[in-house]
């Protein structure tokens, strides 16, 4: 049998059910793996060793009494350090929240714990989820398990690297403009961005509230659906959650035959790496070969989506990050000084506590919302957001011959080198060009491992993005299970 840390949730769950392994075995195996490889990968900011062992024993006790809660009971997972965990330090990988101990759990964390999942640790991210490489973390740079000189993507880079390197069976990430999908693509794991509102944002440190979603990174689409089963659903504590509850229990692959997949030509034009394009086109051929219908479409307003995103998102960031005032929690210039005036307390605390990217986004957001510029930037971006949303509505409009799913690349290039783009914010923003249009439209999208490109020193993963219509999360996951069976990419990085 393969080492326990290599198991999928499905495999581990079956073995636990049959009492062939214990949750404690599984959790200890995962920690052993972390001890072996995380020194190189640096995916974790914090390990919950004692808590996890304790929970594993409780889980084993339930199993021995025949009272297993469900398929996540006893399964070791990790959580991006953007979600509040009661009594466990939660930092958003930012200096301003270093040492912050939440007094409550995020709804997603609460639901996972109630499902019996075992949180082994908190994973690294770009501070406040601002970035596409995890280099913006104020604490450490996570490395790509496929090539330790390269970035794992971001902002959920710690989660993607941890899953790819078998340092947990699955992880929870967040996605505001690609932060689940892009790292999943660059690390060859599955990353699912649900429809906006499908999963509660309560207790998730806010980035851009109209775009943020929480979702799973996993080894398989089936595992992602098991995670969705536990974390999704309406929540009184997040009034933007979708009221209808979707059932993600025991999803099975659907036949690709007769399904219509649309390729938007704007996503395959200039700027895409030719090798990446070949990998996606090969996957598209495979889909065609198994009976899927392939059509070309245009999403004409999507070319403005990057601008729209980098206006709306910083605007919301500047508003959400106002709460870090040095008065109530977080880094405070007031801790060591009694002679500060109120205004100095604010400006000093924020100046010292925020990293460069957070400051850049707060400044940009403040600018586009300021008198004289609000109409030219923010208001205009909200109108173009309508056009982007309309493009997707039209692409999926069944009454007008629309598609079941839209297929695009996730990232225009494979993982880039650490340091390659860190001093050039625009180059970094451009690496999100295929993922950012999805969030303003609120539709669900998944990154599935599609293949590899050869580079001089390494073989680098490429992901394929499959986009569904709003609220069609379940069918997108069912199709993803079928697509993963078809594409059969199950290689592991050599660490």
């Amino acid at each position, binding site marked *: 049998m393969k080492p326990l840390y290599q198991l999928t949730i499905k495999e581990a769950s079956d073995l636990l059910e049959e009492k062939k392994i214990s949750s404690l075995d599984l959790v200890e195996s995962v920690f052993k793996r972390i001890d072996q490889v995380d020194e190189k990968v640096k995916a974790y900011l914090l390990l919950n060793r004692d808590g996890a062992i304790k929970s594993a024993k409780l889980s084993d006790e339930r199993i021995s009494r025949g009272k297993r809660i469900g398929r996540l009971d006893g399964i070791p997972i990790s959580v991006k350090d953007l979600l509040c965990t009661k009594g466990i330090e939660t930092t958003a990988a930012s200096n301003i929240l270093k*040492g*912050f*101990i939440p*007094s*409550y759990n995020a709804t997603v964390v609460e639901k996972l714990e109630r499902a019996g999942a075992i949180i082994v640790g908190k994973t690294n991210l770009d501070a406040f989820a601002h970035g596409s490489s995890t280099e913006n973390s104020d604490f450490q740079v996570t490395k790509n398990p496929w090539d330790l000189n390269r970035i794992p993507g971001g902002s959920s880079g710690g989660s993607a690297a941890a899953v790819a390197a078998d340092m947990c069976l699955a992880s929870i990430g967040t996605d505001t403009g690609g932060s689940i999908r892009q790292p999943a693509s660059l690390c060859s794991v599955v990353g699912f961005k649900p429809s*906006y*509102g499908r999963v509660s944002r309560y207790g998730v440190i806010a980035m851009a509230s*109209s775009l943020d979603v929480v979702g799973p990174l996993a080894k398989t689409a089936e595992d992602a659906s098991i995670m969705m089963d536990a974390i999704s659903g309406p929540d*009184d*504590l997040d*009034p*933007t959650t*979708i009221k209808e509850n979707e059932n993600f229990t025991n999803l099975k692959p659907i036949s690709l035959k007769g399904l219509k997949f649309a390729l938007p030509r704007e996503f395959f034009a200039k700027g895409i790496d030719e090798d990446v394009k070949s990998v996606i086109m090969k996957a598209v051929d495979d889909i065609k070969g198994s009976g899927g219908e392939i059509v070309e479409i245009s999403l004409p307003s999507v*070319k*403005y989506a*990057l*601008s*729209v995103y*980098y*206006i709306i998102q910083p605007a919301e960031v*500047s508003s959400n990050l*106002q709460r870090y005032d*040095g*008065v*109530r*929690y*977080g880094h*405070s210039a*007031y*801790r060591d000084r009694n002679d*500060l*005036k*109120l*205004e*100095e*307390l604010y*400006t*000093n605390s*924020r*100046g*010292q506590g925020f990293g460069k990217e957070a*400051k850049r986004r*707060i*400044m940009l957001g*403040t*600018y586009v919302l*300021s008198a004289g510029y609000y109409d030219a930037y923010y208001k*205009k*971006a*909200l*109108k*173009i957001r*309508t056009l982007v*949303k309309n493009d997707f509505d039209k692409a999926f409009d069944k009454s007008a011959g629309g598609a079941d799913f839209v297929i695009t690349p996730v990232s225009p290039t494979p993982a880039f080198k650490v340091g390659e783009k860190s001093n050039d*914010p*625009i180059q970094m923003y451009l690496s999100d060009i295929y993922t950012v249009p999805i969030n*303003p*439209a*609120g539709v669900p999208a998944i990154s599935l491992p599609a293949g590899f490109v050869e580079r001089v020193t390494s073989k680098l993963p490429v992901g394929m993005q499959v986009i569904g219509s*709003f609220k069609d999360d379940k069918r997108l996951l069912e199709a993803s299970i079928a697509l993963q069976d078809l594409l059969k990419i199950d290689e592991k990085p050599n660490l």
Partner: protein
Amino acid sequence: MLSKEEISHIASLAKIELTNDEALLFGEQLSNILNLFKEIDDIKLDNIEETSQITGISNVVFADEVKSEDGRIPSGPKDNLQNTPKIEDTKILTPKVIER
């Protein structure tokens, strides 16, 4: 190109103290980013409505009552103030807000 005065005005609105180096760097970088937005200058947007969120949900309300029986809501000031820089009993201390 954003001027030094513009950057310092934005920083003061955002209540962030910037170093000289940061002000220079952001001046250049923000100007480059704003340049990128030129592509949306000429789009015709008459009669297009604004989308600020996509759910269509509006005015969600709930009863104003404390629900702490499931442990989700912090139970009291002790929990809530554990991260607060300066407190006196259960009060948060700040510098003087109104000058005489």
